[in-house]
């Protein structure tokens, strides 16, 4: 909770240099902050995806902690096994340390193909943190739509044509699905708000039981922005309320950052190429704005409902 920028800059452990993430990629930020706030040894379990591909090209590895990649849809199930092994080995006095298991997956491995194994691991109550680096499409295979892709976004499987203008459906609200499991801690964060993200990762690591942090993590080739504007694009997602920053601790909702003067979602859309085809279509932009407004209101209602129920909180 106390990490300031100077302290952060002194915690240098991160992915080793030489990994192959694109310039302007968001997930190295997430990993660096994860290491910065970790107080226990970590074991990382990673779903197949960009992160795995760019950090583990044999015979090199960018990981300074024990790391396991199994397959695409089973990071949470694999983490269950590691966590079970930690428990069993400790119980028999065969392990002195007490490592925390962290599973990391993209939105493909978390929202879609891995949702079953993720839900199963949450329901069983394993002691692990799951971090989703959510870049809103299947980027590793070359930018295909996922259920995290927002309405109107152009991907290679939701293209712009005469009959279809990008993805027809709005994105799925995975964070709420996770909250419905009744786990101790779930949060949404963004790479743009590093202190908020670091605090949420720290809380997620400290919880005993399952924790989830859904981090909006822009993808330069997938979202189509100049590499140096990574943080700015993510910032606009938050400032426009397109990606609210909030957390749910033991069922209690809290918006962790309220944009004082929210910018129109158009500003977020204009910062990227994936919505370029929409910008001239006022009605399409207005529809996305309505979706953003409705979801922000719903979130506020959850917060106030919670306040009414437990006035002291």
């Amino acid at each position: 909770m106390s990490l300031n920028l100077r302290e952060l800059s002194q915690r240098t452990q991160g992915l080793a240099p030489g990994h192959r993430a694109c310039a302007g990629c968001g997930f190295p930020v997430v990993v660096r902050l994860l290491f910065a706030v970790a107080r226990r040894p970590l074991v990382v379990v990673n779903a197949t995806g960009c992160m795995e591909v760019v950090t583990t090209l044999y015979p090199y590895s960018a990981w300074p902690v024990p790391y396991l990649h199994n397959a695409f849809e089973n990071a949470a199930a694999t983490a269950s096994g590691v966590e079970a092994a930690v428990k069993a080995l400790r119980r028999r006095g065969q392990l002195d340390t007490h490592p925390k298991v962290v599973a990391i997956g993209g939105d493909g491995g978390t929202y879609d193909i891995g949702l079953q194994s993720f839900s199963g691991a949450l329901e069983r109550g394993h002691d692990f943190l799951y971090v989703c680096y959510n870049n809103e499409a299947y980027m590793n295979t070359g930018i295909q739509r996922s259920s995290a892709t927002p309405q109107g976004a152009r991907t290679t499987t939701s293209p712009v044509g005469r009959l279809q203008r990008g993805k027809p459906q709005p994105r799925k609200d995975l964070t709420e699905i996770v909250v419905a499991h009744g786990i101790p801690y779930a949060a949404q964060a963004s790479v743009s708000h590093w202190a908020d993200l670091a605090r949420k990762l720290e809380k997620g690591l400290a919880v005993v039981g399952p924790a989830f942090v859904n981090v909006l993590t822009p993808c330069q080739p997938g979202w189509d922005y100049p590499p140096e504007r990574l943080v700015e694009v993510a910032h606009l997602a938050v400032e426009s309320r397109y990606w609210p920053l909030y957390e749910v601790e033991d069922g209690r909702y809290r918006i962790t950052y309220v944009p004082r003067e929210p910018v129109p979602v158009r500003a977020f859309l204009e910062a990227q190429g994936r919505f370029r085809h929409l910008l001239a279509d006022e009605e399409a932009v207005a529809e996305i704005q309505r979706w953003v407004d409705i979801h922000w209101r719903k979130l506020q209602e959850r917060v106030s409902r919670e306040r009414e129920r437990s006035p002291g909180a």
Partner: protein
Amino acid sequence: MTRRMGLTGNEAVALAWKQLRPHVVAAYPITPATQIVERFSEYVAHGEVDTEFVPVESEHSALSACVGAAAAGARVLTATASQGLALMHEVLYIASGLRLPIVMNVANRALSAPINIHGDHSDTMGSRDAGWVQVYARNVQDAYDRTLLAVWVAERARLPVMVCLDGFTLTHSLEPVEVYPDEAVREFVGEAPPDGYTLLGGEPITVGPLALPDSYMEFRRALAAAMERVPRVLEEGVRAFRQHFGRDLPPLVEAKGTEDADVALVILGSYADSAEQAALRGRVRGQRAGLVRVVTFRPFPAAALREALAGARDVVVLERADTLSGLGGPLGVEVRAALYGLPQAPRVTDVIFGLGGRELRDAELDALLRSELPGGVVYLGVEGAHVLEPA
């Protein structure tokens, strides 16, 4: 001391698991393997074993969790059958590719469609090239023994092992089983040999990296070499087994009466008893018949089979799976491959029987052995000639 108990195949496996005292069991129920997991959960619930039991939400997650636990350095067991094994298919290759000594009991069952819960070998035959050692039990005692042996072998060969027992004919049949004392089992399997490549060993190792064309082939060749070493590990394993429990387990094949046989039957699994009886009845009739039971199907015991079958005029492969390739069943294809090039190689008749739990009757076997063996592929006991007509 050794106790004699009446146990079903599933109960015997669950008891073996308890005695093996795995760190982690991650499993999902499926007929006809369900009772293994049920019985083991009871052991856990009653505190009879201090295993971390992970009741996963699917077979895919079962094996995924096993991979995580084994990579962390735990002793890991699971069980499945049929569709469950098919759902695990992707992770089977990862378990062997990562050289993780996971032991899995498979209650052999037919594959859908049409859906069928009864025994045949379609499920494990679909996994035959996944880099797992595969052994097939003959009876409940054998299922118990082979499960104990499998852990010893897996941890020394650094390969996953499937111990297959026929659905219902073994999983649900009550047989007398000699059960070894817990301490004897503990002594036999001991602690796993030291391994510097576990996630919890203190070093920041990366397991499951990306390997491109410049390195992938070396990993796969090393895996093949590990499989080639398995017969030697098995030899040592059965020797240790004999020392601890006083029982002889044939490591690769079990041959009876093949020395002078004109006709040799080759079979996997529990129908070996029926086949052995048929060979004996042949002997009574004056037919020189013998039997080879293939115990270890992966790695394939080609040399042992050549040795046992070289003198026969006819080899009759009896098997409960089909490759659907026009070449017959997988065992027949591989027996032919093993015999290829032998001077005066025996004629091979590949008999596919018992799919989806269809009974094999003694009279059918006798009629087969009395007839002129045709070579090629025979589907035994299929009724309604129209199903065989080509279009």
